[in-house]
């Protein structure tokens, strides 16, 4: 038996998506984060992306670790199952969940401490294992929840609120994700909803490991002068490579673009990623070039954002393992238990 989603009754004037849902149907509990926290903007972008894509909320599994960022799955998609696991270990829990049921959409939300410090290993291995997921790191360069210590993504030379200067090299998660084979890699900024929403949409429709590093200022501990993850600093140094539109079905190009300005990539599920180039020479399907460009612009002090790499036809963990089509959690006794006769044969071979 299947059950049709029933949209809640809201204000009649609120716009609805294909499923008849309003944006409200994608909301969750009320946020307990600090007012102005970048993470809340990312939650809003996730809500917007899921609504625009007309995703059935209950078909999403929200997974996270521990941190302010990892709390956010409670604040969006209230009709989805969520799992706030342990610090730094969301990737393994998500991997297991994905193995059990390949039919759901897996959205992993993590922080820079969660993914670049304590969970660096799990982050790396889930990417190289090609788990079909959208993995968003809400990157504020500090441990928000434990009150402002430097994290492993704090830039060298970045200043803490109390004045200490970070002397350790920063981990660039985008660089690592590219190196380890993520097939959809993006960076964005919580303050740029226009850029972020389509990037999340593209990731959710991507049938492989999709990683988004989203810079998300911590207003409580890392938004001051001297910080490289503050609203002001990111706005000043943001260097967008492209502007993405995710198109479902054959929508005609309505805007006039200059020749060579637009590039379209069709993903496995038919969704089209339409990229308006903001940087002449940038080719998001060339992984090596993307890595090179990233290093180059970083040295120039820029924060490169946009869809940085896309492989439209990726492989994922299930295809690599060769698992059956039917989700493993739906296999019944007949498919799972070989029975007494098979056991008798095994016994016979052991005598």
């Amino acid at each position, binding site marked *: 038996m299947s059950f049709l*989603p029933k949209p809640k009754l809201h204000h009649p004037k609120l716009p609805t998506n294909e499923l008849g849902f309003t944006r409200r149907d994608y909301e969750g509990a009320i946020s307990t984060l600090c007012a102005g926290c970048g993470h809340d903007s990312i939650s809003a972008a996730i809500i917007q992306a899921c609504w625009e894509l007309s995703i059935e909320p209950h078909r999403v599994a929200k997974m996270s670790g521990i941190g302010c960022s990892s709390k956010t799955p409670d604040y969006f998609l209230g009709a989805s199952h969520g799992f706030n696991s342990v610090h730094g270990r969301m990737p393994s829990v998500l991997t297991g969940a994905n193995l059990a*049921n390949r039919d759901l959409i897996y959205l992993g939300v993590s922080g820079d401490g969660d993914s670049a410090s304590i969970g660096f290993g799990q982050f790396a291995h889930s990417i190289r294992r090609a788990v079909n997921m959208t993995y968003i790191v809400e990157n504020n360069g500090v441990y928000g929840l434990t009150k402002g210590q430097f994290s492993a993504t704090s830039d060298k030379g970045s200043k803490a609120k109390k004045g200490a200067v970070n002397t350790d090299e920063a981990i660039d998660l985008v660089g690592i994700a590219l190196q380890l084979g993520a097939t959809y890699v993006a960076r964005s900024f919580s303050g740029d909803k226009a850029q972020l929403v389509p990037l999340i949409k593209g990731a959710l429709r991507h049938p492989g490991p999709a990683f988004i590093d989203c810079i998300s200022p911590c207003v409580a501990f890392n938004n001051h002068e001297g910080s490289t993850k503050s609203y002001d600093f990111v706005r000043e140094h943001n260097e967008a490579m492209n502007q993405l539109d995710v198109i479902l079905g054959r929508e005609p190009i309505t805007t006039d673009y200059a020749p060579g300005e637009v590039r379209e990539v069709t993903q496995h599920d038919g969704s089209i990623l339409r990229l308006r180039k903001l940087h002449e020479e940038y080719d998001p399907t060339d992984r090596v070039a993307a890595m090179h460009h990233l290093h180059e612009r970083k040295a120039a002090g820029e924060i490169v954002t946009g869809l940085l790499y896309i492989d439209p036809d990726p492989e994922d963990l299930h295809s690599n393992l060769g698992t059956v089509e039917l989700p493993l959690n739906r296999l019944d006794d007949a498919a*799972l238990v070989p029975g007494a006769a098979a056991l008798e044969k095994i*016994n016979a071979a052991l005598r």
Partner: protein
Amino acid sequence: MPRDATNDFVVKFANVNGSGSASANQLFAKSILRMGIPIASRNIFPSNIQGLPTWFEVRVSGEGHLGRRGGVDLMVAMNPQTWDRDIAEIDPGGYLLYDSTRPMPASRFRDDIQVIGIPLTQICNANYTDARQRQLLKNIMYVGALSALLNIEPAVIEQLLAEQYKGKEKLAKPNRDAFHMGRDWALENLQCPLGLQLQRADAVGNRIYVEGNAAAALGAVYGGATVCAWYPITPSTSLAEAFERHCKRLRTEPETGRKRYAIVQAEDELASIGVVIGAAWNGARAFTATSGPGISLMQEFVGLAYFAEIPAVIFDVQRAGPSTGMPTRTQQSDLLSAAYASHGDTKHVVLLPEDPRECFDFGAASFDLADRLQTPVFVLLDLDIGMNDWLCEPFAWDDSRRLDRGKVMTAEELEAGRTFGRYLDTDGDGIPYRTYPGTHPSKGAFFTRGTSRDRFAKYTEVGAAYVDNMQRLLKKFETAKSLVPHPVERRAAEPTRTGVIYYGSSSAAMKEALSALEKDGIHLDALRIRAFPFHDDVLDFIARHDRVFVVEQNRDAQLRTLIMTEGNVDPARLIPILHYDGTPITARFIRAAIADRASAMQVVPIGAAAE
């Protein structure tokens, strides 16, 4: 005096790892079983691989004793690197069989043993040119010689070779020939048979000969496990490997050749248990296999699974700790770290199989228990059970049995308006309902977290709600008592106020010790514990006896501690009998230790224990 014994002796093979000896030794062991004579066999392999030594010990026991006996009656010394210690290990009057191709000075032998030299290398070199063949067939050749020396029926060996090389006559023939070459040489040149002899019997029945890890893995297949995540560690590795082997045969979708299972070799044990928890949360049956160090790494996650109430099955094949300890030696030393794994107040279900048959049974049952109780379940094997072939009852399965998925609320039930509170104790057994992700568009979703929450899974730091939840978890643990395998009691021939408690791989040695002690006039009621939490029968057993020996293979008397703590038992009534040098416990040890304590306690008049 040379040893004389029929169907009751110990043969030990000292080999070089990788020389192909394992399959020859297996042939030797199986041929005895096929003659209807019980054996107990053990692999001994040091972690230090210099000189690549490996030993294989076969205890022949017409009476059916399956524990390690201790001592060696016949040493087959094929590893020059371990020669001296191998010679030293032979019991006085015992035998040494060695490759006499190269002469050995008399000083390297002992004069209280019988020495049998066979120029194995020489015979091989004379008959084969290929180097690998020379090496492999040398092993078969010593089996041939042993068949003459010990009276193994050659037809049995031929049958075994025919089964092993079914359809591959090209391989069967050279093996058969080598076997006969060795046998003929011995018949012509040696006094056959020795004092040690085999005589066909009918004491094996329909029992099977199998390793505990393979059996546990098969239990996981029958228990419906679909996700396995693991990180290699001795002695658990062969469990995950066996699962893959079984699944290839039993879980491949016939139409497509695709897998009805997923195995992930994770980056560490934290990821292994994380994958298991994620999969089980999402409605698949999942397990990991590890050993002590892995259990230590999994602690934080186990607490999450306990508190968030997520099923998980953890096979712990124990080895000697702490730390890397003696990684290729056996122990029962993870009991406490499993039972109380993680920070905060936690308690976990622990199953304690005695042999491969129970590894299969408990392996399958653990998944039902984990789902039914929505909590981690540990299955504690040890190296002795896990990595050795044991003679045990055949596996059995009732086709009418169904996987018990526990309390899972369906979309239909939600649609019909049933109240769903993830942590609501609707049935009074402490076990709430859960839903699988994606079940229903608008009902039954909840947020899983390791933080405190109310009965409807809403975050809360209210003390009363926290206590309410912790008390329900205790109630659930109480429910577990009746669901886990019950203890098995064996009454003494005569009424007694003294008892003994034991578990796991100590079982075989304990059985043997009990009958020996009985002959000594020491009567003990015996209780084999098969699970934690303890069934009421355990405390009842202790209450019925003045003194209870607790036999275990660790230093700190971990089971005794657990019984004292959980059952509020007076420590003075529980007398620890501890064996923890890394070798499997023996009946000789138990008998001596209990006889010693018993006489001190005046369970029997002093001196009565002496033979």
